[in-house]
């Protein structure tokens, strides 16, 4: 393909310094095409949120060390600073959070919070920004939007707040939307509505979307592509259909077995026995080896290779290398 990818991670490494060093991301390679919707799956602590935050450079600068390349729409995100970084945040790339009740400022109205974002990025007047806010609330289908504009976050229901958060995130027409478990905090019925809304707006605005979820059912429902993370790296990526029908990595298989077949929808990804490794050292072998029933000496002695199963379907596992 000759199109510039919307997002390109090149060998991304993230370490947190502190009492203990945490190797949160270890050499991640991933790209996203414009208009594509990618679901990021993985257990708690696998580095999904950290990956999203690097795209906005939201990690605490003093305590985190980043290496490798991050490009959004050709822009080198790693080298952004000051004004350019502030323009990037919320302008080109915006984010919606798991808990809209916490991510919205409790003492400003929803309208004010959307409007200030628009004023900040588009340099328009306050009343023009309020018009945009109203339009956005209408687009996310909040009933009686004029009235809701003047609501404080605590005056709305959880689903309504997340709609407002989406309206805020999309108000400056970003090319890339990041959604960190956007529906986890919501009731099951509201979850589906919000996801369908996101999908619809994504297609309407032609945005790329990366969303984090613990729910494979959700990933299947709305995503074009799935990326499975484990201990700070990708273990498998591919089109949603490929990954679901033909999972290759033992971890992905475990996840699917535990969650798809006869399992309750909405269950979290924790049904594989064992626990992920501590991230104290950079990995020098397959991180999944301790929990993998196929593990051999080769898995424990070197990093497993990344194998192309088919066009877009890649697996990081020794088994696949042997099959080829």
């Amino acid at each position, binding site marked *: 393909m000759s199109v510039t990818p919307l997002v390109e991670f090149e060998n991304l490494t993230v370490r947190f310094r502190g009492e203990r060093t945490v190797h949160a991301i270890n050499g991640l390679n991933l790209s996203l095409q414009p208009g594509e919707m990618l679901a990021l799956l993985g257990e708690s602590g696998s580095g999904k949120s950290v990956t999203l935050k690097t795209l*906005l450079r*939201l990690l605490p600068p003093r305590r985190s060390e980043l290496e490798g390349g991050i490009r959004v729409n050709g822009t080198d995100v790693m080298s952004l600073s000051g004004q350019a970084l*502030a*323009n*990037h*945040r*919320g*302008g080109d790339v*915006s*984010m919606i*959070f798991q*808990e809209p009740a*916490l*991510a*919205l*400022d*409790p*003492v*400003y*109205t929803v309208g004010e919070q959307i409007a*200030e*974002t628009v004023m*900040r*990025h588009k340099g328009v007047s306050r009343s023009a920004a309020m018009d945009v806010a109203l339009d956005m609330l209408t687009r996310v289908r909040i009933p009686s939007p004029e009235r809701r504009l003047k609501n*404080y976050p*605590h005056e709305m229901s959880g689903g309504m707040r997340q709609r407002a958060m989406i309206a*805020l*995130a999309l108000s400056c027409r970003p090319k890339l939307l990041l959604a960190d478990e956007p529906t986890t905090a919501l009731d099951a019925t509201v979850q589906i509505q919000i996801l369908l809304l996101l999908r619809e707006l994504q297609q309407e605005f032609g945005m790329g979307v990366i969303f984090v979820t613990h729910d494979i059912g959700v990933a299947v429902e709305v995503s074009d592509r799935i990326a499975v993370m484990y201990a700070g790296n990708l273990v498998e990526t591919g089109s949603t259909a490929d990954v679901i029908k033909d999972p290759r990595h033992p971890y992905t298989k475990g996840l699917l077995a535990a969650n798809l077949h006869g399992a309750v929808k909405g269950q979290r990804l924790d049904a594989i026995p064992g626990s992920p490794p501590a991230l104290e050292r950079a990995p020098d072998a397959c991180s999944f080896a301790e929990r993998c029933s196929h593990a051999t000496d080769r898995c424990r002695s070197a990093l497993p290779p990344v194998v192309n199963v088919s066009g877009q379907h890649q697996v990081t596992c020794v088994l696949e290398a042997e099959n080829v």
Partner: protein
Amino acid sequence: MFAYLIRRLVYVLPVAIGVSIICFLLVHIAPGDPLTAIMPVDATQEEQAAMRSAYGLDKPLPVQYAIWIGKAVTGDLGKSIATGRPVAQEVFSAVKNSLLLAFTASVIAFPIGLLLGFIAGYYRDTIIDRLVTACAITGVSVPNYWLGIVFVIVFSVQLGWLPSMGAGPGGSGQWAWDYAHIRHLILPSVTLAVVPIGIVARTVRALVGDIFSMDFVQALYAKGMRHGDVLRHVIRNAAPTALSVMGLQLGYLLGGSILIETVFNWPGSGFLLSNAIFQRDLPLLQGTILVLALFFVSMNLIVDVAQAAIDPRIKRS
């Protein structure tokens, strides 16, 4: 908002009545006969009885209360046993002096406390924070009358820069905004400001530190807001609580500090109260306590209403 105000005012009424009953009873329950302080030691039984009935002290308590409160609402708090002057007049002039001291101390304390607290909260867990916190704790823990005495020794006795006693040439009745009077205000108000500086700084530090670690701050950065905008959000979140802390501190200051006013011979309500206690001046004591207690009640009311006005999270309906 208006309905809220009315409702709060209605609530205040029973509180005020309760406060007045407590003021009245406290003074009566306290041991000691108020007459002993003013009667000659060799006064006869008859003379004592005459005095008692002159001040209405021979009537049953509920009747005494009814008479007292009935007059009090018309502004008549009786006459001081010790000086014979109307209590209302004494209290009025003392409260005016205490207010002067309290407002001056607040004007010194609040900006400093807010600024220190904000800086410490902003730089939480750094050396700056520890320095500010240490100062704040010292300010709160050092007994302020002792500090007052140290100030007197240093600035009045040794350096001779500032006076140590009284409210200036006009005496307790006349205040004027000229240097001759203001120099009398400096030491007591600075001394009085130390504790509120510490309390406001510590509260604001914890508040601002907590707000900075809240998710919405990261969300503000995530949508590209500049540092100044984020500070505006943080300040607006901190404002209601900071305001209520300052309101309560102002309430304490308005009550007049018995110790500070005694150290500096400042003719305020604290000073008056201590005189009333030592002289067992019953009407003066009751009147002073009543006025101060009602002050607290109104202060709380004002703080609550102001907080509701600026904090959308407080339900007003």
